[in-house]
């Protein structure tokens, strides 16, 4: 699904990512951990394709296509969806109108009221996008937008930060709904059959500090990013335990 190769990225002339390799197979969920300022958000933003994040070396492959130089909206069209760590408010634009526009753009029909109510956002549809929303409400709003976008690759930047436990559960439910996780991944059938279905197995890259979200969304693999480099790869739940006990210092030795 996604392959990041030797990615080096500069922001405002400063090298932040110093050669990141990462691979995400269809149907897999990968947790990305690492200390503050290590470059997790930078990696997400670069995969999404924002021009401020300059790729100086390496490439990004998505669904067998080199997307390193594609504009953001084309990546969205290909099926990448990002939940921002920090969202933006848009004055004068009602959430309902906005979601309708997103659906139109994606060429999908969505029961906006239905999903908004399912995720406790029904009362927000007539308010301006994120305007005056609390931290947790903003996060739910991110997921409401992602539910409409229905991407194949989810990039989730700290989906649970600032969210109470009940709502973490709700966000977990939203993620599983997008990932179609209630359906078990199909591994049977001939190669060509699987090939057709290949991208229907959705993937996610989740940045998390606490790992709470991983109680609701099962992660298959964990990566640790320190100072712009992947230093550790393994069972995400094990990594979290070690980090909790010894801090990230222990991870540095993992290499």
């Amino acid at each position, binding site marked *: 699904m996604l392959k990041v190769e030797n990615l080096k990225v500069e922001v405002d002339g400063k090298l932040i990512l110093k050669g990141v390799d990462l691979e995400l197979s269809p149907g897999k969920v990968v947790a990305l951990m690492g200390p503050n300022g290590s470059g997790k958000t930078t990696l997400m933003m670069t995969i999404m394709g924002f021009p401020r994040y300059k790729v100086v070396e390496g490439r990004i492959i998505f669904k067998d296509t080199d997307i390193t130089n594609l504009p953001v909206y084309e990546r969205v069209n290909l099926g990448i969806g990002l939940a921002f760590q920090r969202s933006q408010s848009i004055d*004068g634009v009602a959430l309902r109108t906005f979601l309708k526009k997103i659906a139109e*753009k994606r060429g999908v029909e969505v029961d906006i009221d239905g999903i908004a109510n399912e995720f406790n956002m029904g009362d927000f549809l007539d308010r301006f996008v994120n305007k005056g929303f609390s931290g947790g409400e903003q996060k739910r709003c991110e997921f409401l937008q992602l539910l409409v976008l229905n991407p194949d690759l989810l990039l989730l930047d700290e989906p649970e930060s600032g969210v109470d436990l009940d709502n973490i559960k709700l966000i977990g439910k939203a993620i599983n709904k997008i990932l179609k996780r209630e359906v078990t991944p199909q591994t049977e059938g001939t190669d060509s059959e699987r090939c057709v279905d290949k991208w229907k197995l959705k993937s996610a890259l989740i940045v998390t500090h606490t790992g709470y979200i991983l109680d609701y969304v099962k992660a298959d693999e964990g990566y640790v990013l320190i100072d712009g480099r992947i230093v550790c790869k393994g069972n995400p739940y094990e990594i979290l335990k070690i980090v909790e006990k010894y801090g990230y210092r222990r991870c540095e030795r993992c290499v």
Partner: protein
Amino acid sequence: MRVKSVDLKKVGFDEREVDRSGSYMQVDSEVVKCGVKEPGVYVIPTKKAIECDEYRKYLWKALKEDPSLGDFSNGYFIITEPGKKAIFPVQTCLLIEDSNIQHVHNIIVVEEDSELTVVTGCSSVPRKGTHIGVSEFYVKKRGKLHFMMIHMWGEEVEVYPRTGVIVEEGATYVSDYVCFKPGAKIKAYPTIYVDRGGTVVVNSMVMVSETSNIDLGTRVYLKGKGARAEIVSRSVSFGGVSITRGHLVAEVPGVKGHLECKGLILKDGSIVSAIPELEARTRDVDLTHEAAVGKISEEEIEYLMARGFTPEEAQSIIVRGFLNVDVVNLPESLKEEIDKFLELTTEGI
């Protein structure tokens, strides 16, 4: 009909008069349409109306008489019966086609306990011309006037409206002003006088083009206890000069007013000024203002791009929101027109 190259729908005028209680149309100095469908509402050419003393008394009462303006060619005179709540709006349209100068005198009288909406569209073929519109509105006790004005001028047209509004006890005046394809020069400073318990809400959204110089303001005198005013001006500049003014005057205690002037610059070479002014002539008043001039934030554009929109689309969504296109209750055909306009103008920025 003489109308040549102006699409009237764009300025909110429905030629079939569906869902309209009356219509008035003037091309240059000629009245080409004038009539009503709903009882209790009267639409008369001003020249004819003032032949009658009963109506003549409304001339130069909300504005100071100004002989320097010269003689007016005509204009509309709209009056309701007391208590009449008009179901549909009256539509009016003033067009410049051949003449160099169009000078109209418009009067609207909403009688006690009556309610009326007037949608007025002003436009011209794209060439030189000057439009001087004198407007006097009277909203009597507990009456309600919703006045919606759409300006769509040719590039070289100059527009100098004079407007005075008298809002009596417990009455409400709501004005929505939309100006896109502005002429070369517009200068207007309507003045509104609000009596005890009266309410004024003024929204304006202006899209300033490269060749235009727009100077718009609203002045409200809060003259009676409990009078309230809210002025919201939004202006977007694609080059050109835009000045947004506002002046709230509190003359007695117990009044409340809020003034908001916001400008957005989309193109270099624009000059945008926001000039709010608050004036209290007594204690115990509540006057506030908010002014801001800036550009669209990069983060907002990025946020929308991540939802699949191109940078141009992202920009027009933000501008549309900024202008409050969905907040103000505009006719659908006009919204579509604004969208088309924004799409075109945000291309290549």
